[in-house]
């Protein structure tokens, strides 16, 4: 590790099509401004404008990506200075954009998947009165997310980071008339604040340590900082990443966030925003390379989260919550990859991309199923839908095969690589990752069986129907990507592509041959599928969830008591602390201040009585004064 060369970010000026980079952000931002400020006048064509800006952004992103492909390997880091944002003394923050192999991939994912989801939303939100506003929020999210990934400075990144937090809040609470949605939005916002606090502290520490917050400056100076400082920065950045990516211990908001419309869950809470944490850690590789403790912590949190999410996914009956648990678990895999250092960064990003495809595909598929079933989300009321919604079923199946890691599909390649690298690093981590893969296979098969197979358990008044073309076309595109995403690994392309950003790992022979490893993973996955088949596919699925279940199931249904843990460890003690502080404030501090005032008031009230209006009383005090003067003179002269 010590001999490792940490890549330094050195952006160069790009010309030609690359100078259009700012438009990638500006287009959706303008769309959001027009839709949100334009009011009802934009109702008629608002959704079309929103989709058009997203597509435009995607086209420009694609052009810049192709132009980047055409450049030399060492020349692929493009900077663009828009304007000076903050200039105070030696603190100089420019509104700078940075397009390098890492952010270019993200731009493609965000705008590409984002555009598909925009198109899907045209159909999904057709009957919603506030569709125009929904598209405005979606555009706002895209703009903020692109700011996040294109930033060349931690502070600009923070701007986008907060922007996506805001958009996420607005979209989770989009159906604000539902108290659960409003509460979920608030919960997500507050829990994200905790993470954001970590990020902002990290940025402050970065500024104090390096005197700059730009990636270029920090990456150049990172080698000179002490390990303790880097560890502190790394842990704070990790806290930020945990908040945004729903990692343990800040994971509790993601399941509640499913209260938002399904396209939102697909775009923000599966494919893009929640991966911002992985992006942040990958982007900050120059810090983590010198921070062994922070890196170990990343791995530990990743392992906990990937198992945690998977276990929750096994017990949920709400189709979206199963997918949310699975998202949590899959992001855990990405974090695991990111925590493994240069050997894992590329695979983390690879898994992030493939996950973006297949998870968006499955979320949109779930949305399509809900669309067919009159917004029913309980899988116990599904069953035997493969005939009713054939396109949705087929596309969903592609996603399913991808996520469980069926050989040949996208998820197989990406997850396998992470497990392999993890095993190299530490066999125990590898074993945990393999177990996670097995559980993933179990709960995804369970979802598949309960939704599309087994006998139908529909309500009497439900007549499932296939969704319109505007919804199924994005599904088909995403399904295709889920199948073919693995091509990114062809000839180790993605590793080479990302190496200028994340560095190159020393190559050494794994303890267990790659093929054997793959075989083990496939066997474990097959075991998970078989277990699901025997417990669910072969038995009658009750319409109501059985109550006499094992304590493990009950714990998993309660999100492994994540909320209770938060309640007991944080909310209640802090609440008590605040109550105590308030009591102190009210009694001691206010008591002192108000007591002083009351004392003065009382004293004044008492002294006021001296002014009783009687001339003779005043004369008495004059006489007393005269006596004092006389006595004083007497004393002085004696």
């Amino acid at each position: 590790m010590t001999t490792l060369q940490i890549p330094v970010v050195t952006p160069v000026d790009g010309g030609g099509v690359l100078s259009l980079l700012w438009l990638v952000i500006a287009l959706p931002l303008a769309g959001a401004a027009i839709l949100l400020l334009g009011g009802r006048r934009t109702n008629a064509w608002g959704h079309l404008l929103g989709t058009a800006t997203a597509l435009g952004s995607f086209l420009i992103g694609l052009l810049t990506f192709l132009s980047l492909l055409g450049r030399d390997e060492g020349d692929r880091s493009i900077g663009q200075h828009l304007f000076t944002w903050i200039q105070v003394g030696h603190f100089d923050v420019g509104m700078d954009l940075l397009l390098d192999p890492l952010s270019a991939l993200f731009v493609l994912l965000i705008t590409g998947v984002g555009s598909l989801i925009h198109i899907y939303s045209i159909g999904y939100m057709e009957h919603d009165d506030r569709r125009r506003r929904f598209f405005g929020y979606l555009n706002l999210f895209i703009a903020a997310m692109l700011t996040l990934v294109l930033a060349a400075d931690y502070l600009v990144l923070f701007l986008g980071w907060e922007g996506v937090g805001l958009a996420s809040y607005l979209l989770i609470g989009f159906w604000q008339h539902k108290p659960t949605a409003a509460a979920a939005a608030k919960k997500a916002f507050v829990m994200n604040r905790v993470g954001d606090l970590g990020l902002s502290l990290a940025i402050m520490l970065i500024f104090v340590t390096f005197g700059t917050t730009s990636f270029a400056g920090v990456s150049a100076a990172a080698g000179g900082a002490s390990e303790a400082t880097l560890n502190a920065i790394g842990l704070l950045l990790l806290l930020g990443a945990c908040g945004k990516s729903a990692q343990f211990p800040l994971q509790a908001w993601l399941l509640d966030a499913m209260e938002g419309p399904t396209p939102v869950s697909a775009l923000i809470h599966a494919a893009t925003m929640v991966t911002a944490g992985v992006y942040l850690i990958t982007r900050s590789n120059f810090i983590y390379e010198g921070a062994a403790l922070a890196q170990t912590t990343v791995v530990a949190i990743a392992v906990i989260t990937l198992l945690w999410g998977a276990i929750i996914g096994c017990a949920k009956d709400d189709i979206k919550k199963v997918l949310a648990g699975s998202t949590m678990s899959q992001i855990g895999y990405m974090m695991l990859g990111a925590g493994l250092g240069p050997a894992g960064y590329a695979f983390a990003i690879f898994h992030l991309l493939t996950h973006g495809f297949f998870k968006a595909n499955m979320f949109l598929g779930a949305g399509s199923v809900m669309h067919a079933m009159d917004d029913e989300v309980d899988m116990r009321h599904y069953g035997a839908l493969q005939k009713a919604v054939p396109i949705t079923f087929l596309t969903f199946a592609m996603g399913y095969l991808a996520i469980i890691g069926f050989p040949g599909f996208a998820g197989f390649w990406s997850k396998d690589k992470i497990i392999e690298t993890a095993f190299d690093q530490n066999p125990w981590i590898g074993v945990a990752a393999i177990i996670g893969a097995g559980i993933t296979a179990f709960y995804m098969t369970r979802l598949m069986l309960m939704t599309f197979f087994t006998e139908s358990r529909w309500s009497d008044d439900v007549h499932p129907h296939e969704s319109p073309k505007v919804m199924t076309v994005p599904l088909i595109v995403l399904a295709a990507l889920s199948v073919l995403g693995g091509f990114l690994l062809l000839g180790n392309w993605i590793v080479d592509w990302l190496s200028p950003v994340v560095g190159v790992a020393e190559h050494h022979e794994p303890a267990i041959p790659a093929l054997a490893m793959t075989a083990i993973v496939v066997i474990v996955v097959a075991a998970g599928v078989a277990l699901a088949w025997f417990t669910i596919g072969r038995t009658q699925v009750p319409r109501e969830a059985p109550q006499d279940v094992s304590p493990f199931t009950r714990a998993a249904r309660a999100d492994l008591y994540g909320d209770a843990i938060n309640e007991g460890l944080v909310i209640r003690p802090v609440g008590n602390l605040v109550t105590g502080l308030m009591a102190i404030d009210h009694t001691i501090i206010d008591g002192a201040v108000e007591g002083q005032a009351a004392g003065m008031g009382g004293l004044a009230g008492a002294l006021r009585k001296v002014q009783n209006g009687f001339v003779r009383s005043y004369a008495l005090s004059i006489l007393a004064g005269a006596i004092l003067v006389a006595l004083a003179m007497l004393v002085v002269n004696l």
Partner: protein
Amino acid sequence: MTVFWILAPIMVLAALCILFVRKAVHAALLLAVVMMSLAMLYASLDAPFLFAVQIIVYTGAILMLFLFVLMLVGVDASDSVVETIRGQRLLATVLGLVFGATLVIGLSQVTWGTVVGLDEANAGGNVPALANLLFSKYIFAFEATSALLITAAVGAMVLAHREKLTPKEKQPEAAARRMREYAETGRHPGPLPAPGVFARHNAVDTPALLPDGSPSQESISRVLAARGTIRSASVDDVDDVQRQLSATESSESSESSDRADEQEDGQ
């Protein structure tokens, strides 16, 4: 010094009595005693001019002014020596004693030089000597006092003057007012009963007796009532009157009963 030792106890006694007498007139008279004694002390201190001024200005003019005002103001509750402010009398006494003790002790500590005497200063007569000083050394102070006196005179006039805001009520208006009051409030329109008319005495401090023999409160001065110097008509007097009335009943019955009715109304 003989004069002093005779007068000093009188003055202190008179001054102390001012504190305790109930009536203001008595206080004024006691003050006159103090002032006259002071005049005599001035004379004994070789100040004949001040002796004259003390008697003429203080005792003659200022004290008389006090007496005039006392008569104008009359008698009221302020003459009472009952204390109304809590603790005032006690504190005043204590502080007064402390003050007196302080002065006496302080003055006792002073070493007084030998008395020079005014024989030299008064060689050409006290009044010319004072005039010499007054019109030379103290001329500005003297002129300032003249301005002060004029200001005080004008001020007193302004303060005591009462502006007439409504036209003076003449006889017709007074008659009309009385009748209106009789009509509205039933107040007796005629003059108040004269004191002593139906009593044995006709002095002003004896109330008139009503036909039923009770004394009429309206027939005596309010000031006399406040001073508590009204003579009560005794039961014998009432009996006398009743006897006289019954003797003359045959000749004056109708007239007197009418008047009695009217007086009842008036009350």
